[in-house]
């Protein structure tokens, strides 16, 4: 697919992420295989931040390997699919005893907006 033609602009990505409260975070488990978990998303000021249960698989996995992907997708209909994936490294920024918060360092962003698909 000609991905570059369906990219969102940096402004569109920032607005899309700022409006979302949930993401799927992909990590690598200590057994070497990939793992995933829904996370609470909070993006602002150009930073991607999320929190997960401190004793859950994502927080555990990130202690072994900080590489991650944060995926957000909107699927109102096939033609309306929009999505952003943020690849990078997790840095723990807080822990309230129940949940650990992370920010994504060195983010690389991929995006797609099917409404921009030529038809």
């Amino acid at each position: 697919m000609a991905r570059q033609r369906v990219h969102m602009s940096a402004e569109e990505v920032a607005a899309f992420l700022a409006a979302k409260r949930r993401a799927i975070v992909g990590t690598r488990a200590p057994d070497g295989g990939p793992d995933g978990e829904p996370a609470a998303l909070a993006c602002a000021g150009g930073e991607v931040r999320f929190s997960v249960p401190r004793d859950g698989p994502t927080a555990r996995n990130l202690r072994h390997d900080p590489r991650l992907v944060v995926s957000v997708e909107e699927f109102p209909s096939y033609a309306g699919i929009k999505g952003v994936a943020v690849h990078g490294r997790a840095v723990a920024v807080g822990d309230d005893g129940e949940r650990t918060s992370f920010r994504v360092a060195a983010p690389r962003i991929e995006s797609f907006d099917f409404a921009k698909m030529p038809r």
Partner: protein
Amino acid sequence: MAPRLETPAAEDFLRAHTRTFLLTLRPDGAPTCHPMVGLWRDGALWLNTYRKSAKVRNLTAEPRVACVVVTDDDEPRFRGVVLRGRAEVVPAPVAVAGGPDARAARPPGVSAEVTHRVRERLAEGKRVLIRIVPEAVRLVGEHG
């Protein structure tokens, strides 16, 4: 007869939901995510994609994958199921002969036109089916 998952709630959830985030490992070992449609049939999750896609390349090199299947945006309670297991690429003619007609299913939100195009590309061999038999299953979110 299809094996039952140990968690009946997970199986009920998977029958009713198709929104799937597939996690694979890239050649450098970093995780990546592919939002897709997943259909639960006969003890396995079935996905459908281009044979030459990055996800097929990734899971051919490293068949261990995870899938997070979640509720749609308009459902009031957010719930999901996380599966971990091994992925296998199944050419469409084999899958069709094998029974579960993943080609015939039309997930919610996908038009008849798109479904028709997908079936044509499966028949041509441009698309393939991915079958994932879970080895570990867990519930996430607000299950009752």
